[in-house]
């Protein structure tokens, strides 16, 4: 919601200062709603009954699925910001996808860890290359790390943002191909055992906590994203001021 607001208001927000004001106004509300939703979601996810097949491990789903959903959504947001960077050259878009990369990596890692913790009791192994989703999420994680590395490798922030944006877009186009190929690869190699859980029968019993938790995680992401964007803007201001003061100092020396 906030993100779409931010995107539609992007043209008004040419001025980062206005964005900062918006963040300052939004974040307390967002944080409060997030905390509330987490409280409700955690309560629901421990109150509801376990699945008769999977036992209590179904509760892991309430963390795992939102994290995996965020891993995807974060990349989508980064791709949208990348378009903003390349087409409109908007500085806020630069900041947005740079700030989102570590968050995306963190949520992807969380999805991997919880998936692995779910897989151990269900499949009997921590990690399997047989599951297409697991493998492609792992590749997504590598892509996030690559983007972070690229952002760190280039000093000039606006150039780093534009170059990273190209890579984000190429990666975004690639994600369906990677997913498709990994699935194909599994059908080829894994004929005997079908390790995939055939989508837990979505019962309202499970759906309710899942939806609440998904919403809570999404709002958490937006809160953190807005704050990380603000930090990034501040970082750039500090850098700009340092440059300026250095220049003034050198001018003073010359005079």
């Amino acid at each position, binding site marked *: 919601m906030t993100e779409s607001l931010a995107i539609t208001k992007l043209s008004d927000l040419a001025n980062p200062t206005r964005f900062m004001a918006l963040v300052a106004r939004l974040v307390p509300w967002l944080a409060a709603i997030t905390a509330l939703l987490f409280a409700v979601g955690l309560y629901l996810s421990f109150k509801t009954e376990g699945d008769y097949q999977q036992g209590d491990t179904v509760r892991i789903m309430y963390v795992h699925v939102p994290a995996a959903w965020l891993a995807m959504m974060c990349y989508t947001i980064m791709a949208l910001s990348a378009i903003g960077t*390349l087409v409109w050259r908007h500085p806020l878009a630069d900041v947005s996808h740079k700030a989102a990369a570590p968050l995306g990596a963190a949520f992807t890692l969380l999805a991997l860890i919880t998936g692995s913790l779910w897989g151990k009791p269900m499949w009997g192994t921590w990690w399997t290359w047989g599951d297409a989703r697991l493998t492609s999420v792992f*590749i997504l994680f*590598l*892509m996030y*790390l*690559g983007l972070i*590395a*690229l952002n760190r*490798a*280039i000093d000039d922030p606006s*150039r780093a943002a*534009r*170059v*990273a*944006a*190209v*890579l984000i*877009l*190429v*990666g975004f*186009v*690639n994600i369906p*191909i*990677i997913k*498709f*190929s*990994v699935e*194909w*690869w599994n059908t*080829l190699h894994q004929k005997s055992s079908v390790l995939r859980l055939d989508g837990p029968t979505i019962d309202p019993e499970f759906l309710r906590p899942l939806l609440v938790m998904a919403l809570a995680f999404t709002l958490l992401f937006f809160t953190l994203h807005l704050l990380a964007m603000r930090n990034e803007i501040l970082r750039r201001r500090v850098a700009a001021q340092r440059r300026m003061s250095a220049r003034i100092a050198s001018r003073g020396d010359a005079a």
Partner: protein
Amino acid sequence: MIALLSRDLKLSVRAGGGALIGVLFFTAVVAVIPFGVGPDLNLLARIGPAIVWIGALLSSLLGLDRMFQTDREDGSLDLMLMQEHPLVLTVLIKCLAHWLGHGLPLVIASPLLGLFMNMDEVAIGATMATLLVGTPALTFIGAVGAAVAVALPRGGLLVSILVLPLAIPVLIFGVSAAYAAVEEPAPFLPPFLILIAITMFFAVLGPLGAALALRNADD
């Protein structure tokens, strides 16, 4: 365009251009595998196509970082950016030259390495065919990475990290087509055709992305 192609080709074939180094690296990688897994000929024959493919993937990463960097250093990249031809076309030509210089030697060397791996004739032929079709895709993906890292002083390792995840589909379909030719029930054509489709796709996406990155990396 032809001039650019021949110039790049000459540069890559000339000593220090890296074409020979790529083949040597390829040979070394594949030759190291038997020391790791042991001299079991049946096992080697079974994993052979995969090993040859991985070797080719790694060695195609080798020369990537120099793809645009040499042009940047001697200033010809600026000329390319200012040209009237669309930059995408220039990049495409450069990719082709890079593939002829670095990719094709790998394809030609692969049967020899297939013999090392105790692969039979069909497997060698299939691996060679898939490499012939698949390595251009690696070059096109690599071009994006190379263009992204063009301004970095030491971008070689970073290019590999950025490019490898994107190259996974090529590896998967290349290896599965090569296996499908050997193992009876699996049909050879579907993965092979998908591999061709992926190469075509990257032939469009790669130069587009690389041109975009080059335009954005220069100022």
